[in-house]
């Protein structure tokens, strides 16, 4: 466990990992990212000057009140919404060229949404392997990978089931497996457990931690649940609304994997409390 596990305030542009591993290429780099929504009546600045650097294997949680632009940020990262300012680099390569996505960069990403968004006409295995099918992998490869991933996310034996036969938590597992199927360099998650009940959610958090470590995935995890953000994240990025900008980046020093009991410890409580105060102060 690192010595400063309570965390320190850091300027957004200078994350801790920068001086620790100066030569490693950053997994994800956001430079001055901004997003404006223009309508006839008004212009809304959804994101303003977002600077963030994420290194390989890191788990970064992004928290903020609803409407603070965290989903906008994730959609920009996922290649679904073009930012109006700044650059997003995945392993040094620009994701957006003007307002068009670079397909070869997008293919390095895996996205999990709040809703599982499974295709009810496909079995679990076919849902998991859909990205592989789109990319043109052959049937045997797809089947093998689907089995592998079903096992990874704890759905072994459910490969032939259909989404309607699964519970909400199981569907979200399928969505995670689908996002992982192409072995993405970066896993983007937008409140993936937001629609689940508290107990299932807690279990899914543990599962996600295990899966992230097993795959060595770099994860950007958007949530409005502070406890979840602190439990999962190596760092917690806090956004403030209107315009959405980074107000604080908090390093959470507990080693991963973390035991569920970490949550009841005093240090964990302190971090959560401080983040909550900071969020409340935004009113």
């Amino acid at each position: 466990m690192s010595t400063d596990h309570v965390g320190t305030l850091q300027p957004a542009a200078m994350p801790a990992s920068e001086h620790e591993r100066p030569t490693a290429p950053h997994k994800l780099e956001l430079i001055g990212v901004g997003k404006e929504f223009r309508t006839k009546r008004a212009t809304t600045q959804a994101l303003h000057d977002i600077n963030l650097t994420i290194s390989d294997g890191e788990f970064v949680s992004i928290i903020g009140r609803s409407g603070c632009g965290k989903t906008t940020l994730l959609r920009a990262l996922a290649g679904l919404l073009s930012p109006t300012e700044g650059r997003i680099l995945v392993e040094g390569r620009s994701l957006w060229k003007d307002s068009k996505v670079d397909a070869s960069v997008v293919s390095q990403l895996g996205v999990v949404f709040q809703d599982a968004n499974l295709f009810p006409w496909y079995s679990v295995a076919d849902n998991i392997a859909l990205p592989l099918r789109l990319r043109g992998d052959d049937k045997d490869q797809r089947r093998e990978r689907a089995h592998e991933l079903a096992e990874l996310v704890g759905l072994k034996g459910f490969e032939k089931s259909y989404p309607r036969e699964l519970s909400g938590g199981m569907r979200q597992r399928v969505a995670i497996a689908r996002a992982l199927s192409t072995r993405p360099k970066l896993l983007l998650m937008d409140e993936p457990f937001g629609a689940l009940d508290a107990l299932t959610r807690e279990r899914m958090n543990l599962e996600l931690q295990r899966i992230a470590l097993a795959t060595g995935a770099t994860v950007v995890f958007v949530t409005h649940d502070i406890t979840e953000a602190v439990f999962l994240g190596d760092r917690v990025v806090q956004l403030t609304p209107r315009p959405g900008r980074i107000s604080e980046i908090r390093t959470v020093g507990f080693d991963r994997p973390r035991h569920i009991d970490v949550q009841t410890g005093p240090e964990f409580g302190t971090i959560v409390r401080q983040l909550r105060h900071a969020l409340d102060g935004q009113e």
Partner: protein
Amino acid sequence: MSRDKFEKWLPWLSTPLILALFFLLWDTFVRVNNMSELVLPRPATVLTSLGEIVRSPDTWQHARVTATETIGGFLIALGCGITVGAVLGKVRWMERSLRPMIVASQVVPKVALIPLFVIWFGFGMTSKVIMSAMLAFFPIMLNVQLGVRSVDAGQRDVMRALNAGRWQTFKHLELKSTMPYVFAGMEVGIVFAIIGTIVGEYLGGSEGLGYLVVRTLNELDAPALFAVIILLSVLGLLLYFVVNGLKRFFIPWHESVYSQHDVNA
């Protein structure tokens, strides 16, 4: 027997019972009121008449004509309905510019056009096929239009995040999620197609079960009239079950197909 299983078999038990009760009431009603069989024949008389009609090869010729007209009209409606519905669902400006015409043409009592069709296309099968196609077209077209627009935004995001091409998005998402709407339209459409055919046969021509209805009416042969109506119902049921069977085959994953009882969760 479990509750679920019981509910599955219930219709097979209840339907014959209700039918039997219906015929019993019917028979009692005729006997108690001492009604003339010219007005309301007793079920037994209808059954005898049905037996005679079924044995006549003439009847099967008429049934074949009606079935051909209905299926022909339905298939035309299906092709046109899917094409027009998909185009109108996809191309906004076209839908907007055509909407008043579409609403207007729906309000027009299309059955009233049959005499015109008879003038243009004669007393043969063509006028009936057109009538049945016209009636079946609208429910199919409207459902397809709705289906094309109802593709889930979240599922679209998935395809976009996977950088799927236009054809891939169509094949894996748009086509599949429109299918339930196509079948919903088909289920209504086939019923409308039969109505179109029969009304067409009422008004002109010398073939088909609809014509047989008119002929038995003119002969004041009430039992035969009832028997033909029964035949028509059977034809309608058969066609509906074919469409329903196709639906079960093509979209077994849809909630209108799998009953709640199959769900494990």
